[in-house]
């Protein structure tokens, strides 16, 4: 291992960019695109190093991870000795994530050069924070223990908060940023509890290497471990926007489109999937957790897809699509783990989840960035004001078509391969638990809906007659700094799926204990895929979806209004637009329940406690006021009291006798 020795530098370079761009003042970068060249340069260096490290890990990897760490905190003596480490842990999964993150990040930063050009002085803040994000995201990927992962997990959340609220003078952006942070914090609390369970259960050691090798050393029984892994997954639910903590992601589209592409599609929201995949050796010990993961994933997939069906905001459609696709990944991982617990040769689920993670990162980044190019051209996110743009935006429409074909799952585009694997994993689960019949059905219906809404998006945007003449007139193709990254991503969105044929599964899987990869050549795999009837089911679902979209939005053979005219259709449509009431529900919990309780507490504080205290003090003051009446100010009356008092004492002494 030579390059891996320097892997710790990977997050350092963007961090340097953050410090330089963020703290060296506006003046220095006024004529320099707000420090963009530094951000791009540092990210590119990281990319090169990442690729080298990843290549090395994937080709020479023997299944044993490369680990480097230094002690961060050592607590010794007493009854509780433990060490927190900071380090890097590189196996094939890390390598995969490194490639995805640094590659997409580099392209997005370059793309920003064009997209953010008009932002003026705010650009510096943008490039600083996005550099910080890239740094901490790479740190998350490289983390060597759960605590370190949690630390970076929180920091990516911070960057997400800062970038969603980039246009912070817009109230909606500030509100969306807050919502994103708070909702993911709910997940973070669960993550923390999961960490406590592991920390105490594994006697104060949170290192991946130790835990994965000593899963049996957990103290507290399998039920506690199940609780712990469920809580870890709770963290993933928050970060990856799964049901019921999904509602922040559509709001997060208030940020710049580049941010949506990088953070809320390709990298940060994948952290939850990465967490589950990373802790697979622990997770598979608890099949109940795996079942929950599969169910939440499958349900979220179909649940989010429905909301994308009738939305008219181009970015929101993509956001729902992201939630739905993340659900696919959890479905695959959960199903795979559930089966694995009973049949330790099964590795399709794990491969499917991570494979879809990679492919999705490429095609969803592509889709978001293309959408960004469209928005850049027409200055609106409302698809009702677009249309016919393919004449003006030739490249954009082409690359977006590739992205749509890929996500819809049309062979040989990348989405096809991984989606097929996901569905295969879900189908395989039927043998073990009949719940998977439902989940497989969810997956298949989602595939149909995905194809439909993506092509609805494409047709509404690019085909037909322009619905807003003015915007159409002013639309122009994106500059080269924008379309070149798009083209690169399009190549990957088309081609990354072929990794499957060339040993993706057998490369990735050996990082895990007890996995037995079957070695198979491309031809075998190809035959396996295309002789399976399930493959044709998913292709059929995709083609049906595209066909329906074509009929409705291109040929206009079916009027879309038909579905919303009836009272049922109207209600349904409104429910979807209201996101099943989740937005209201969150607001209700926040404003009514929590804020209401806060008001009650405030009342107790002001009226009850302070009322009691002030009441005591007022009582004392009042009795003092009463008693001070005795103080008349006439010396003679005081003297009279003295005389009377002395006389009384003398008389009393006489009466009692004895002294005198």
């Amino acid at each position, binding site marked *: 291992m030579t390059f891996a020795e320097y892997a710790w530098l990977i997050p350092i370079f963007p961090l340097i960019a953050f410090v330089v761009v963020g703290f060296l003042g506006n003046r220095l970068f006024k004529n320099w695109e707000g420090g963009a060249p530094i951000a791009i340069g540092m990210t590119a260096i990281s990319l090169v190093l990442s690729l080298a490290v990843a290549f090395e890990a994937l080709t020479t990897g023997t299944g044993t991870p490369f680990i480097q760490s230094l002690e961060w905190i050592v607590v010794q*003596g007493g009854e*509780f000795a433990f060490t927190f480490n900071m380090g890097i842990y590189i196996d094939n999964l890390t390598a995969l994530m490194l490639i995805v993150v640094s590659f997409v990040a580099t392209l997005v930063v370059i793309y920003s050069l064009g997209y953010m050009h008009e932002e003026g002085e705010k650009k510096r803040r943008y490039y600083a924070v996005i550099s910080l994000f890239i740094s901490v995201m790479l740190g998350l990927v490289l983390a060597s223990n759960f605590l370190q992962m949690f*630390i970076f997990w929180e920091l990516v959340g911070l960057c997400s908060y800062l970038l969603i609220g980039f246009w912070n003078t817009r109230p909606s952006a500030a509100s969306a940023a807050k919502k994103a942070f708070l909702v993911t914090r709910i997940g973070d609390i669960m993550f*923390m509890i999961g960490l406590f369970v592991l920390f*105490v259960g594994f006697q104060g050691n949170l290192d991946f290497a130790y835990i994965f090798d000593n899963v049996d050393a957990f103290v507290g029984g399998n039920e506690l471990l199940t609780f712990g892994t469920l809580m870890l997954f709770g963290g993933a639910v928050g970060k990856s926007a799964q049901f019921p903590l999904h509602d922040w992601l559509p709001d997060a589209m208030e940020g710049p489109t580049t941010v949506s592409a990088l953070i809320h599609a390709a990298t940060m929201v994948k952290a939850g999937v990465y967490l589950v995949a990373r802790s697979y050796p622990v997770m598979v010990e608890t099949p109940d957790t795996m079942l929950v993961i599969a169910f939440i994933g499958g349900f979220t997939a179909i649940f989010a897809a429905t909301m994308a069906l009738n939305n008219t905001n181009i970015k929101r459609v993509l956001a729902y699509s992201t939630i739905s696709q993340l659900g696919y990944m959890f479905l695959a991982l959960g199903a795979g783990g559930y089966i694995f617990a009973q049949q330790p040769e099964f590795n399709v689920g794990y491969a499917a989840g991570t494979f879809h993670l990679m492919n999705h990162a490429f095609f969803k980044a592509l889709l978001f960035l293309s959408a960004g190019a469209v928005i850049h051209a027409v200055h609106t996110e409302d698809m009702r004001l677009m249309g016919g743009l393919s004449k003006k935006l030739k490249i954009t429409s082409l690359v977006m078509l590739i992205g749509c074909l890929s996500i819809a799952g049309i062979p040989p585009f990348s989405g096809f391969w991984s989606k097929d694997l996901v569905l295969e994993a879900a189908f395989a689960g039927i043998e073990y638990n009949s719940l998977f019949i439902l989940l497989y059905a969810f997956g298949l219906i989602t595939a149909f809906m995905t194809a439909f809404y993506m092509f609805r998006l494409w047709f509404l945007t690019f085909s037909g007659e322009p619905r807003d003449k003015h915007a159409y007139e002013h639309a122009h193709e994106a500059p080269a700094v924008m379309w070149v990254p798009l083209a690169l991503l399009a190549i990957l969105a088309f081609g990354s799926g072929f990794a499957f044929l060339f040993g993706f599964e057998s490369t990735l899987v050996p990082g895990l204990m007890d996995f037995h990869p079957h070695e198979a050549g491309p031809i075998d795999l190809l035959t396996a895929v295309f002789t399976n009837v399930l493959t044709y089911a998913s292709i059929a679902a995709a083609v049906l979806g595209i066909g329906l979209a074509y009929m409705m939005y291109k040929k206009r053979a079916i009027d879309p209004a038909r579905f919303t005219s009836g009272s049922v259709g109207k209600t349904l449509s409104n429910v979807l637009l209201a996101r099943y009431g989740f937005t209201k529900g969150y607001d209700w919990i*926040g404003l009514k329940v929590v804020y209401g309780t*806060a008001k009650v507490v405030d009342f107790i*504080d002001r009226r009850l406690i302070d009322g009691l205290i002030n009441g005591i003090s007022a009582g004392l003051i009042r009795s003092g006021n009463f008693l001070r009446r005795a103080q008349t100010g006439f010396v003679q009356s005081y003297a009279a009291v003295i005389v009377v008092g002395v006389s009384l004492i003398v008389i009393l002494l006489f009466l009692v006798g004895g002294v005198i």
Partner: protein
Amino acid sequence: MFENIPILSLLILFPLVGAIAAFMMGRSPKAAKYAALAFSAIPLALSTLLLTEFSLTGGFQFVEKYQWISFLGISFHLGVDGVSITMVFLSTLLVFLAILFSWDVEERLHQYMGLMLVLEVGVLGVFLSLDYFVFYIFWEVVLIPMYFLIAIWGGVNRAYASIKFFIYTHVASLAMLLGIFALFFTTAPLLQADGLIPADAIGTFDMLLIADVAGGLGEMLQIAIFGALFFGFIVKMPVVPFHTWLPDAHVQAPTAGSVLLAGLLLKMGSYGIIRICLPTLPEAAVDFQLIMAVIGVVAIIYGALACLAQSDLKKMVAYSSISHMGIVMLGIATLTQLGIAAAVFQMFAHGLITAVLFMVCGMFQHKAGTREIPMLGGLAPKVPILSTVMMMGFMASLGLPGMVGFLAEFMVFTSTYDAWGVWVLVPIATVALTAAYYLWAMQRSIFGELTTKIDTKHLHDAYWFETVPLAVLLGLIILFGVWPAFMLDLITPSIPMVWPLSGVI
């Protein structure tokens, strides 16, 4: 090389000299300002020296002991261990920065500076003394300058706030005094029996000697003494329901006063519990464990909820102190090394963070003329430095990793889980609540559309004497967040000294 220098006495002496000098500079208040800065810089330098010279083996170091009133067993006994050294460093740092931050005070400047230094004398004395009598004297000394700082330089309702502060803490310290006397008289026979004091002595006020034998007292007596001392300390911390003096005092106090009140005075309470209650009366501590945990949790949640309801930025920060000191209490309540070390670290972290927060509130008051959140809005583009600092402070306070508050909170909750299992779910809800009130306050005060309720044309961003202390504090917040081992290595070896776990439970 420093063995022969009475460094701890000097630490107390320099601010005292500075205070006297400042009080006498009524003719040239400007000079008093520089003198105060110089005389607070020296203790800061000395305490930094102390940090570097302190050996990581734990135990009391740099001990000084001079007989004072020998027939009552009173001696001027000073010493530092890992718990107090963090507090000493925090005290000298915060006083120095608070003086710098008050650079633009004009009214009765020399007295203001003098009082700040008297406050430093008192606080340092509390953290350094190892004799109950000296401890109590310094404890009361702290009260007076803070009372005057609020009563003279405070806001509109300062008379109410300052008297409330004084009465609350004074009543509490009377309870504490009773506890000290009880310890003094009841331990005397035990000390005589062990030959630790002469047979004809009335008793001793020495903390370490008393701690040696107090375990031999009867259990009911221990509980009673613990209760009296504990009451004295928790009012100072403060915990619900003895907390209402705190928001009032903070809202009325001048900025530097708030910084020292929250940064140092609150710590005296928790420090007292760690230094006195636990090691002296360990069996009673076990009896009180559940009570401590409950009041800690109540303070955490109650404080956080109260924050959410506030419209005054400074009052919100004041309530957040209650919540964060509740975390300290919870850490102490676990009675484990990890928990108490985390509690001490949280005290240090809270001292740094809350100083930033109160400075930010003070700047809002100063520049925008109001701290009412509904009056503010959209100020981020107008005052970028202030907004950035505010955001960093809030993020530190809500426990963002990479900043000093995270690890402390995390360790407290870890030890809570260790001690009580999934009950940790209750206090950990504060992680979300804290984020909620901070983010919401930020959203309403610096984000969104620019407010029209105040004059925003002449808003001035931070001045140098405001930027410098804030930059120093934020630098330390990040430094100790990235490298917490530095402080934890100091603290943890001293915890067994504080809490002799072996053979108690």
